């Protein structure tokens, strides 16, 4: 079971989107999400879908993967959709038994549902085309101007990088501990919620002890290699903006402009 968990959603590729600077992608994703909440009608969504589709096309990520990201929240989407449809008050369209579907309900259901889907797809494009390591780098660079007001950008990014590196290791440890305790009769599956909660102690405590043991070794190794924090630390692969990033940024600005115009002027 553990072996089948693919870490994050990164889909390897060398498309134009993959090649963009992570900072550009992060900022554009932010902008995209904001614009989603500026849209007021389905025409606005149509423009969004067109823009998103072109981006997906450029990224060369198969549609199968895009929709895989929706799977876990599939039920939420259905839930949102259905309840909106049946519980919104307004002009009655259809009456089935004791449930009423109103015109407003139908409209809301589709509107909210679509917005949610577009939100998730847009965000997953970011994680699908950017390696977690590069995302971390991008975040660190974006946050570094805030160092002046005390945000420890480098340290946070470093923590993230180390954490990412150790997740597979800890997943294995958890597996080993779980099996060892199960061999002693531990049961993580039966019982009510509270009982199952308590049964996790024989799993969590040894996991922590192991995790901190690993931390100890790592700290020693880092200091042995003269790690002293982020000041004056250089990079192996320096991040630079390319004309591609400028192009993407302009495209994004153009998109938001169109959305705003469509929603508020026309």
């Amino acid at each position, binding site marked *: 079971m553990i*072996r*089948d968990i693919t870490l994050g959603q990164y889909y390897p590729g060398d498309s134009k989107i993959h090649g963009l600077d992570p900072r550009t992608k992060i900022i554009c994703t932010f902008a995209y999400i904001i614009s989603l909440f500026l849209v007021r009608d389905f025409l606005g969504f149509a423009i969004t879908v067109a823009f998103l589709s072109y981006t997906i096309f450029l990224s060369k990520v198969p549609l199968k993967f895009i929709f895989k990201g929706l799977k876990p929240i599939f039920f939420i989407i259905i839930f949102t959709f259905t309840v909106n449809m049946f519980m919104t008050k307004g002009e009655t369209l259809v009456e089935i038994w004791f449930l009423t579907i109103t015109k407003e309900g139908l409209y809301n259901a589709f509107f909210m549902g679509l917005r949610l889907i577009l939100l998730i797809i847009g965000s997953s494009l970011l994680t699908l085309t950017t390696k977690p390591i590069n995302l971390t780098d991008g975040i660190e660079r974006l946050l570094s101007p805030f160092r002046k007001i005390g945000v420890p950008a480098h340290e946070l990014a470093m923590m993230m990088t180390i954490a990412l590196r150790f997740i597979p290791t800890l997943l294995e*440890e958890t597996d*080993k*501990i779980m*099996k*060892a*305790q*199960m*061999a*002693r*009769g*531990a*049961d993580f599956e039966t019982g009510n919620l509270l009982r199952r909660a308590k049964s996790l*102690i*024989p799993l969590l*405590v*040894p996991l922590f*002890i*192991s995790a901190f043991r690993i931390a100890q070794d790592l700290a020693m190794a880092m200091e042995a290699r003269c790690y002293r924090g982020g000041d004056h630390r250089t990079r192996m692969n320096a991040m630079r903006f390319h004309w591609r990033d400028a192009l993407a940024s302009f495209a994004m600005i153009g998109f938001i402009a169109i959305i705003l115009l469509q929603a508020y002027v026309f």
Partner: protein
Amino acid sequence: MPIQVKNLTHIYSEGMPYQTVALEDISFELADGSFVGIIGHTGSGKSTLIQHLNGLLKPKSGNILVDGLDITDPSVKLRDIRQTIGLVFQYPEYQLFEETVEKDIAFGPLNLGLSEEETAERVKEALELVGLSYEEIGQRSPFDLSGGQKRRVAIAGVIAMRPKVLILDEPTAGLDPKAHKDILRLIRTVHREERNTILLVSHNMGDIAAMTDKVLVMHKGRMVMEGTPREVFSKTEQLIVMGLELPPSSKFTESLKCRGIDLAGLPLTIEEAEREIAGWIGKQ
């Protein structure tokens, strides 16, 4: 009743492009009270096999009969299997979690549903079997103990469940020579006192040669050899091809033989090798 494994097959990630056949058509028998060793190169399937024996994994096909009951049957309750088959993983001290040694060892018996009195009995017994004193360490935190002691407490935690079959995966891994000997002595004591069946998985050929009465050899998911230690270790070339080696005593006499020294037999222990060499010297 002996444990019977019949045509056990297990495939990891079946259906995926990276699926691996971990076990292929494995069959063997463990006689009651025997001391059996399993050897095999890393990746040969040893860990997978032992996890099937105590029900942690279910096979794709095949049966495992314990006391006449097929434990691969989905309706068999895991709790019953764990009572009969105990499994000590590698580096078992990493499973310690309780506040005191006594409570940690009691974890297993309590999970089996034993009463508090019975459990207390078992804890004392188990500690004695592993060579530790209940008075001295019973109430101490398991994390305050030395590495060797921690391991013994962890093993005690499984022994306290009084399994009919005790499986140990590399019980001497990472220990210094003295602690290594202590653990081996512990295993012998448990085997003698509890009269159970012991299955020892190890890379240490010397341990296997000295302690087991039957050896199973695994290679790439298949069981390729079965026999007494002497029988198995006499097939030297085959073992080397599989990436395994002889026990140190035999390796030594083999290298002497290569230099023309005429020694008979295959000593399984250092003592045997001593006698052989002494005998040869006597004849000169």
